């Protein structure tokens, strides 16, 4: 190894970390160092940059659609943290927004990880929304996926239990997650195999208590 002795040891360690040949305590120590030592982290990044074009040879493979659903529901839970941290650090005087986020956060904080039901609401070959129900708390968080809005109509969420009669839950948004409260009579109906459906309604939602516009997507609730 005499010809490697004059080379910078830190740079070689960075190369080994970026290449991925280290294991055990050596890898842990190097990873840890990269989080604390800016200069070392920079060396690692430079090696990652040198090696990354090699990945061009790796064939692209589509993951199954459930992966996005899982990411979507995992990130929905900490979305408001995000907003809050962002607005806090921003120069905008957005106190009201931050307060609203905080209220939302406390609200979301009441999500117990237990008794969670998930539904991917699909229609026409598209996944429109992903809904997560906390049946203990009686809340439903609905994350838009591929849904794109309509200038004249709004998406409304319905719960359809085994009796087949849709119950209105609330209005959804194409551009952000909405958390709705399920009244106790609906919360008891939100069980495995009940269906969530989305219809397009006039602004303000259906006034008849039943969907008036087309039902564009549905999804069955399943326990997580």
């Amino acid at each position, binding site marked *: *190894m005499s*010809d*490697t002795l004059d*080379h910078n040891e830190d*740079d*070689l360690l960075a*190369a*080994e970390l*970026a*290449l*991925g*040949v*280290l*294991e*055990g305590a050596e*890898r842990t120590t190097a990873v840890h160092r990269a989080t604390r030592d800016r200069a070392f982290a*920079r060396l690692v*990044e430079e*090696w*990652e*940059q*040198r*090696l*990354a*074009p*090699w*990945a*061009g*040879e*790796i*064939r*692209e*493979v*589509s*993951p*199954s659609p*459930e*992966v*996005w659903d*899982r*990411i*979507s529901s*995992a*990130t*929905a839970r*900490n*979305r*408001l943290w*995000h*907003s809050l941290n*962002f607005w806090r650090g921003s120069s905008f005087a957005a106190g009201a927004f931050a307060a609203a986020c905080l209220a939302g956060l406390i609200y979301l904080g009441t999500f117990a990880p237990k008794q969670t039901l998930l539904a991917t609401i699909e229609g026409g070959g598209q996944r429109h929304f992903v809904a997560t129900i906390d049946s203990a708390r009686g809340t439903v968080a609905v*994350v*838009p*996926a591929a849904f794109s809005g309509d200038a004249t109509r709004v998406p409304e969420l319905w719960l359809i239990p085994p009796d087949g009669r849709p119950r209105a839950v609330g209005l959804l948004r194409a*551009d*952000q*997650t909405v958390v709705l409260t399920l009244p106790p009579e609906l919360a008891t109906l939100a069980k495995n195999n009940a269906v969530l459906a989305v219809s397009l309604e006039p602004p303000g939602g259906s006034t008849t208590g039943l969907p008036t516009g087309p039902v564009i997507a549905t999804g069955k609730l399943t326990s997580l």
Partner: protein
Amino acid sequence: MDIDSNRSLIAAALNRIPAGDRPALQTVYRLTSAKLFGVCLRILGERAEAEDVLQEVYVTVWRKAADFDANRSSPMTWLIALARNRSIDRLRATRANRNMSPIEGATDVADTAASADTALESLQEHARLHGCLDGLASHERVALRGAFFDGNTYDDLAKRMNVPLGTMKSWIRRAMIKLKACLEQ
């Protein structure tokens, strides 16, 4: 779509994520998940496990997008490094599924035949790296490939190529020094 517009789309979307922009995360996912899944799958060799790690990767992107600095790194470099690191961590934790089939330095199978076929990395950068890899001794190139594509450790590579651990370490280190010198020319 060409590489530059893809690259700036991904970089712009990554920059919007720290503000909690979910459609931006979805854009990043749409443009990059097939490549990153390919990377995870190549290292882990098993779909379910690779999908699990892919999920971790994008949840990390959501939380740590602020760490991405477009002035220092290209978005694909950052994402690929993240996917490789997560896959390697998983591989090290399970010690299963890794490719341990013997390889011999002398029978270096047509490494140069591989080509990049993606809109995500620059063909020019790929060709440049390849040119430099071609300048290495074949046993060095084979060892680097095993590390990069199979997620092998020094120890794995020493076993696969049937050489002492110390020899493998000096092969890799010398190869990395040569590679850097060539890329900096």
